[in-house]
Each structure stands twice: as structure tokens, then as C-alpha cells.
């Protein structure tokens, strides 16, 4: 016997891919050839060892959670009519939006009585901004559509806005406990393009809107709360940020603080 089993025969043997006829030929040869028997044994051991070593990485719980949510949300291709699947949710959401609008209008009216004309204008603008922000966040939750950029990587999310926004911003490297970046959308507030950053804090969704700072400064910062949703704002020399979520205000404040620090470096 001069011909040994070919590599493809040895691999086919280890992988269980030989036909009955090929297997009979291989077995006959192995019975008389120690070298090929050794090779075949090694191939089988190598396959088994590779199979064990290859099962090396397990998905993090937050990814499992996110994908479970995604799979159960029933996302379908845009235009397939799923936008009409949540009429009751939309009615519910719009009810809250209407309540928020009323509440914010009341708050704005009180501000008008107490402050000067400039502050009055500023507060009204703030109220309108919060209303729009609240509206956008509720629409994001109710729509169940994926973000325009889906990534947990800040180096993917930030560059995605290049050429889309007339300003730039930084995303924090370290996030508070149990907080993850889900992606981002390009959206519009006051007819200006803004970045809507989407985070998860546990199972709570958070929208953080970053917009270019207008010429006039606002009178103060107003943490607002509407039907369980908290709205927090912050500003730096260049940017304004507004965060909205139903998560615990302290945890929302941690995220807001991290994002503000990423802009200022302090």
C-alpha cells in the first residue's frame, strides 16, 4: 500500500461527511496503515478541541435584553404598514403630550408674571423646547423603530453626524452603572437639526437631545416632570442638552452629568 488517505478524506472522516462507499474505503485503509490512523485520530481530536476552544465568548446580558426587546417589538420593514399598529398607544401618548403641554403652558404663565420681559421670552422658549423634546421622546418610544444609527460605540455614533449637524459634540467614554448607548437619530427642534442620543438605563429608555446654543441665554435650568417623565437640561459654552426619561431622576442626572462633562472636559 503506497497511497495514504488524502487530506479531504481525513477531514471528511472527522467531520462525518464521507459517503458510505468512501467510509468503507477509508476504514479498510486505516486498518492497515498506522500513519493514517494516527492522522485520523489527530484530526478528530483537533476538531473536538477546536469546538471547545471556539466556544469562547458569551453575549452580555444587556445585549440579550436589547435584542429580546427588539425581537418582541415586532419591527418590520419601513413602509410595511406597521406605523399604524399602535393606534391605542398613540392615543395614550398624545394624551400625555397634551397634558404636558398644558402643564408647561401653566408653568410658562407663572414665569411671565415673575420675571422681566427678556426672561419671559426665554422661559416660553424653554417650555416650547421641553414640549418638543417630550413629544419626540414619546414618538420614539411609541414608534418602536430602530435608531438611524444603531451602535453602542461612541466612535461610531459621533462620526455619523458629520455633515448632518452644524456643530460637533463629545460622547462620554465612561457611562454610569447599568447605562448603555443604543444609538442616535438626527431630528429637529425649533426647525434646527439636533442630535437625539438614545441610551438605556436598565430597562428605561432615555433621549438626550444636543442642540446648538442660541444667542440668548435661558433664565435658569428647570428640571420638569410630566406624568412620570423627567426632563433635565444643561448647557455648556457651545451646546445645550435636554434629557428626557421615566427613569429615576438621580440616575438620569448621573447620565446628564457624564454628557456635560464630556463637552467641558471637567
Amino acid at each position: 500500500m503506497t497511497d495514504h488517505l488524502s487530506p479531504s478524506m481525513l477531514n471528511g472522516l472527522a467531520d462525518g461527511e464521507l459517503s458510505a462507499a468512501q467510509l468503507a474505503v477509508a476504514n479498510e485503509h486505516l486498518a492497515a496503515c498506522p500513519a493514517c490512523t494516527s492522522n485520523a485520530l489527530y484530526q478528530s481530536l483537533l476538531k473536538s478541541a477546536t469546538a471547545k476552544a471556539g466556544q469562547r465568548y458569551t453575549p452580555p446580558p444587556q445585549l440579550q435584553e436589547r435584542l429580546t426587546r427588539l425581537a418582541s417589538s415586532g419591527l418590520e420593514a419601513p413602509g410595511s404598514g406597521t406605523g399604524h399598529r399602535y393606534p391605542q398607544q398613540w392615543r395614550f401618548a398624545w394624551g400625555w403630550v397634551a397634558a404636558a403641554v398644558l402643564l408647561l403652558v401653566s408653568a410658562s404663565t407663572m414665569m411671565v408674571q415673575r420675571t422681566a420681559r427678556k426672561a419671559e421670552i426665554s422661559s416660553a422658549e424653554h417650555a416650547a423646547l421641553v414640549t418638543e423634546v417630550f413629544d419626540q421622546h414619546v414618538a420614539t418610544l411609541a414608534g418602536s423603530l430602530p435608531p438611524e444609527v444603531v451602535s453602542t460605540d461612541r466612535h461610531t455614533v459621533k462620526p455619523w453626524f458629520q455633515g448632518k449637524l452644524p456643530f460637533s459634540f463629545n460622547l462620554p467614554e465612561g457611562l454610569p452603572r447599568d447605562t448603555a448607548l443604543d444609538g442616535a437619530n438626527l431630528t429637529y427642534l425649533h426647525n434646527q437639526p439636533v442630535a437625539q442620543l438614545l441610551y438605556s438605563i436598565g430597562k428605561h429608555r432615555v433621549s438626550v437631545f444636543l442642540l446648538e446654543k442660541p444667542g440668548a441665554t435661558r433664565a435658569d435650568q428647570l428640571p420638569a416632570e410630566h406624568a412620570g417623565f423627567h426632563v433635565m437640561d444643561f448647557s455648556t459654552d457651545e451646546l445645550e442638552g435636554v434629557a428626557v426619561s421615566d427613569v429615576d431622576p438621580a440616575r438620569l442626572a448621573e447620565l446628564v452629568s457624564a454628557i456635560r462633562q464630556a463637552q467641558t472636559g471637567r
Partner: protein
Amino acid sequence: MTLLPWKRAARESGPQTSVFEDLALPLLPSLYNVAFWLSRNPTDAEDLVQETFLKALRGFTTFEPGSNFRAWIFRILRNTYLTSRTGLAATRTVALEDELDDHRNESGTALYPEGAIDRETPERNLIRLSDRAALHAAMEKLPPPLLEVILLCDVEEMKYREIATVLEIPIGTVMSRIARARTALRGELQVNVTPREFRA
């Protein structure tokens, strides 16, 4: 009764979503494991798997019930990887070498060093194969086309035909890549085992 289009879509999408959930979620550990091996970092792996799920969910209406869902979603993962930043870089690096090797090995020759195994004792072989770190290092050195075929064949236990479907290559190429991958692993393991481990 004739349903309005959006009502019909709502009726159809419920069970379909549930089917997708039932089919896709059990494959998450396998998809993430392969994604991590290919992309070599957790962030890219997460993005790769998430994008794969999104594409699969969007395209689920084109999936034929009863056909091989695992091969289908792994093909989406693989194509997503190829168009990702790390995938494009890896493809550019190894494409030419891969093509040349494919041609050279079609004859089935020169895949194993002459007598490479015969000189080794079974004990030495077992010591090498039980060294998990050496195996990981050897697998990490495989170029992506060889690594993916080994992951699908050995780790995911796919048949050659299934692998050919996932990678969109002929079965002959699957076989030659498996042979080359195992030769490369064998060579790396022989080089990487230290004298200390032999003495142990």
C-alpha cells in the same frame, strides 16, 4: 370579511414576530461568539449582532418557512461583517493570499508537511490539544476566511453544504479551506508548545 391593509398587516405581523423571536433568540450566543471571533472586540461584536438582528427582522418576510433559518441568519451576519469596518480591513489584507492558496490547494497536495504527525507521539498531541490558551492563540492567527470556516464547521457543527450556503462558496472551496485551516492550526500548535509544557 375584507380587512383594511393596516389591519391585515397587524394580524399577520403578530405571529410572524413570535416566530422570529423563537427562531432567532436561541441563536444569539452562537451569533455573538462568531461575531466576536471575527471582529475581535466586544463593541464591534455587539454592533454586528444587533445589525444582523435588525436586518433579519426587516427581511424576515423573505425567509422561506421550513428552510434553514440558522444558515440564513449566519449568512446575514457574515455579509454584515464583510461590509463592516473590521471586515473590510480583513478582506483587503487576506484576499489575494486566499485566492492564490485556493488555486494551489485544489489538487489536494502540500496541505500537510510530509510526516509532520508521524514524528509526534500521541501524548504530545494530546498535551497540545488540551492547552486552551495555545488553541486560542492558534485560532486568532487564522485569517478570517479560514477562521470562519472552522467556527462554522467545528464550533457550530454545520455540514459542508450548510457552510457553503452561509459563505456563498462551492463545497470544494469549503473542503479546501477546512483542510488549510486545520493544517495551519496544527502548525501553530507545534510551534507554540513550550518545553515547560512537555516537562509537565
